[in-house]
C-alpha cells in the first residue's frame, strides 16, 4: 500500500495526526507531515485507511500495489 499526502490540499485539520500518529506528524504551523516514505507497513494499513477516510480536504490518497 502506498500513501500520498498532498501538502497543497492540507489545511491542518489534524485528523490524520490524531488517528495515525505512526504515519503523520505535524509541523510548527499545524500542517501534516508524512512520516513514512510512501510505503505503508502492513500493520499500519488500517490506520492509513482511517486517516485517509477522515481527511475533510481529501488530501490523503492510498494506492494498492497489485
Amino acid at each position, binding site marked *: 500500500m502506498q500513501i500520498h499526502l498532498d501538502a497543497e490540499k492540507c*489545511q*491542518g*485539520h*489534524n*485528523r490524520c*495526526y*490524531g*488517528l495515525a500518529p505512526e504515519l503523520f506528524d*505535524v*509541523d*510548527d*504551523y*499545524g500542517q501534516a507531515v508524512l512520516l513514512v516514505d510512501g510505503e505503508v507497513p502492513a500493520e499500519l494499513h488500517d490506520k492509513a485507511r*482511517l486517516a485517509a*477516510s*477522515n*481527511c*475533510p*480536504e*481529501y488530501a490523503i490518497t492510498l494506492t494498492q500495489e497489485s
Partner: protein
Amino acid sequence: MTDVAKNEQAEPEVANRGFGDRDPIFGDSPEGTDVWQRVPYNPDDYGPVSDFATDFDHADPDYNPNAPKVWKQLREDGCPVAHSDRYGGMWIPITHDTVHEIAYDTENFTSRSVVVSVGRPGDMAMPAPIGGVPPISSDPPFHGQARRMLLPPFAPKQIEPWEEEVRILCRRLLDDMGEITPGESVVDAAVQYAQHIPVNVIGRMLGFPEKDEALFRKFVHDALERINEEPGTRDGLDDLGHYIGAQIDDHRENPRDDLTSYLMNQELNGEKLSDDIVGGAIVLLLVAGIDTTWSAIGSSLWHLAQSPDDRKRLQDDPEVMTFAVEEFLRAYAPVTMARMVAKDNDFHGCPMKKDDWVLLPFPAANHDPKQFEDPDKFVIDREQNRHAAFGLGIHRCLGSNLARLELRVAIEEFVARFPNFELAGDVTWSVGQIRGPRVLPVRILAD
C-alpha cells in the same frame, strides 16, 4: 443618527468605563459613511418564516431548534440553494457539494463580512483582502500572511500542554455546583458549565484578568446574537475596543509570556503589528472561540442527557472518545459562516449579485446523505467522518485543536462526575449563526 449625535453620546460613556483616555481600537461606525451601510431590511416587515426555501432566516427563533429538519426538508424538496430577500438578499447552500464549492471559491465569494447583519461593510471599510478582523475577514493573498502569524500558538503541540489546566477548570466548575442529591438536583449544564470553559481558557491564554470573564461574555453576545439590531445600538463593540486597548497598553508596560505579548511581537512586512491589528486579532479569538465552543459542549451534553447508551459507551470504552468527539462535532456543528458575493455570478442557476449575502451552513453539509451514511443518526464510533464543523478550505478553524481539547475534556469530566443525567425542563437554543443550547437544565441521577 448623525455623526455628531453619536460622538456626543460616546464621550461620557468612555470616561465612565475607566479604560483611560484611549480611543477605542475599533467599534461601530455610523451608518451612511462609506464604512457602514444599512441594508434595506426591517425584520418587522417580514415576521416569522413561512417557507425556508424562499424566505430563509437563520435568525428566526424556530430555526436553530429545528435546523436538521429544515435542511432535510429543503434537500428532499430538491432545493440545493435556498434564497431569502431578508438582509438585502441572501443565498443559502444546503448540500455538502455547494457549501464546499463556495468555501473554496475565494474569487467569487469574499470573507469581507462573515456575520450576516442588517449592516454590511461599505467599499471604504477596511477593504478586502484585509477586512476588519484578519484573517477571518481576509481574502487571498493577505489572508495567508495574517493566518500564518496566528497558526503557531494554536498548533497541536502548543495546545496539548493546556489539557491539565482545562481539566482543573472543568472540575472546579463541577465543584461549584454544590451539594448534589441524585434524583433531585437540577443543574444548568449550559449556564453553570459549558459557557465558562472557553472564555476562561482563552482569557488565560491571552493573559487577561480572570475577573473579566462576565464582561467577555457580554461582548461576545453583543457581537453575535444581536444581529438584527441597528448598528448604532451595538455599543458592546465600542466597550470591547476600549477594554482590549487597555490590555494592550498593560502588556506594553508589562510584557509577559502569553498570547497578547506574542501578537504584539509579530511583524508584518518588516514592521511590528499596529495596535489595531493586534486588537482585531484578539477580538477575533474571543468572538470566534467562545460562543462556538460553549455551543459544542452544550449540544454534546444535551445529546448525552437523552442517550443512556452513549453515556454508557463513553464510560465502558473511553477509547471511543477519539471518534465520539468528531461525531459530536459533525452531528451538532455549531458554526454557520457567511460570505459576500464579490462579483455577479451564476451559481448553478442562481443569479448571485455583488454584495448579496451567502450563508455557509457547515452544519447542513454535515447532514448531507450524499456525504454521510445515515446523517441524522448519531453514531458514536462513526469511522468515516470527513465532517466540516471547522470549515473547509483556507479558513479552516484556527482554534480547532484548542476547541477539540476543550470539548473532549469537558465531556470527560462531566460524565466522570455525573455518569447519569436527564433533561429536566425546557431547553433554550441560541438565535443566529452559532447554534447551541443556552439554557440546559439536567437532573443528576444515581450512578
